[in-house]
């Protein structure tokens, strides 16, 4: 709260009134519309892409950064958002959580979350706005897990990152507890992608 002072909203809902409320907050408070960030774990992570899409469609607000710990989600963002928004995807390679919602079983195969993150990464990589981007790979220990992060770099900006945690199950704690992740998120700014 001291190193990264910001407004925090909880329990986001993917509904029209919520987006209207956010627009009102941006008008009423000194909120920097260039630094709207999304963070979601599990179903919240899966909902981050449709949330970002609806936020843009409803109110013309675009997220600057998204941290996802998701397993059952679409993997594409509309061009208007994908070209401006940086994403860091976190996946536990032993995440066998039932990604279903209610009685709907979407997946309980750890490979699915891995596959989804790869699809999301490849989608970002294939965008016209990503032309000229280059890839770097880094492996490090984070909270006792070996984390391999593949990063798409463009003009000095990390536009898409996917981190795979070997042996990790369904938890977002290592990602959210990593100062590097927090710093990365708060360094995102829409002007970074001009």
């Amino acid at each position, binding site marked *: 709260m001291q190193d990264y002072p910001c407004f*925090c909203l909880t329990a986001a809902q993917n509904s029209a*009134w919520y987006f209207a409320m956010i627009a009102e907050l941006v008008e009423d408070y*000194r909120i*920097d519309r260039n630094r709207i960030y999304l963070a979601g774990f599990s*179903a919240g992570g899966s909902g981050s892409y449709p949330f970002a899409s609806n936020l843009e469609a409803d109110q013309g607000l675009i997220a600057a950064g998204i941290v996802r710990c998701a397993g059952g989600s679409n993997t594409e963002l509309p061009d208007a958002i994908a070209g401006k928004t940086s994403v860091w995807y976190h996946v536990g390679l032993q995440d066998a959580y039932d990604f279903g919602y209610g009685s709907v079983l979407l997946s309980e195969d750890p490979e699915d979350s891995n596959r989804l993150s790869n699809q999301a990464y490849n989608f970002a990589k294939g965008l016209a706005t990503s032309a000229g981007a280059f890839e770097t790979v880094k492996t490090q220990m984070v909270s006792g897990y070996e984390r391999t992060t593949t990063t798409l770099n463009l003009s000095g900006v990390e536009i898409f990152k996917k981190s795979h945690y070997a042996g990790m199950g369904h938890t977002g704690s290592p990602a959210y507890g990593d100062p590097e992740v927090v710093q990365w998120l708060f360094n995102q700014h829409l*002007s970074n992608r001009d």
Partner: protein
Amino acid sequence: MKEHIKISLILSVFTILFLALVSCENPADPTIMDSGDMPFQHNPAIEDFDEADRPYYESKTFDDNGTSRSYELMRPWNYDKDYNAERSYPLLINISYTGSLVAGQT
């Protein structure tokens, strides 16, 4: 004993001078405080954070065409301080289950 008192006095004078110099820094300096059009910077150490001002989630309501909707908002620490009056802040939205694609994807 006299020497000890003398040293203590000198140290006290230096401490007071140091604190006076620190307090003279202008916390409203826009080149330090306002990151509105720049990549985010760590909060400068010159800003004090009083525990009494620690932010908390406020329960708020939004008028959704006559329907009252509830939500919670936490403002930045020291948001209301005069020296932050021109400063803008990021908005972090935590998407929980209710933000999932199944709960209202369009």
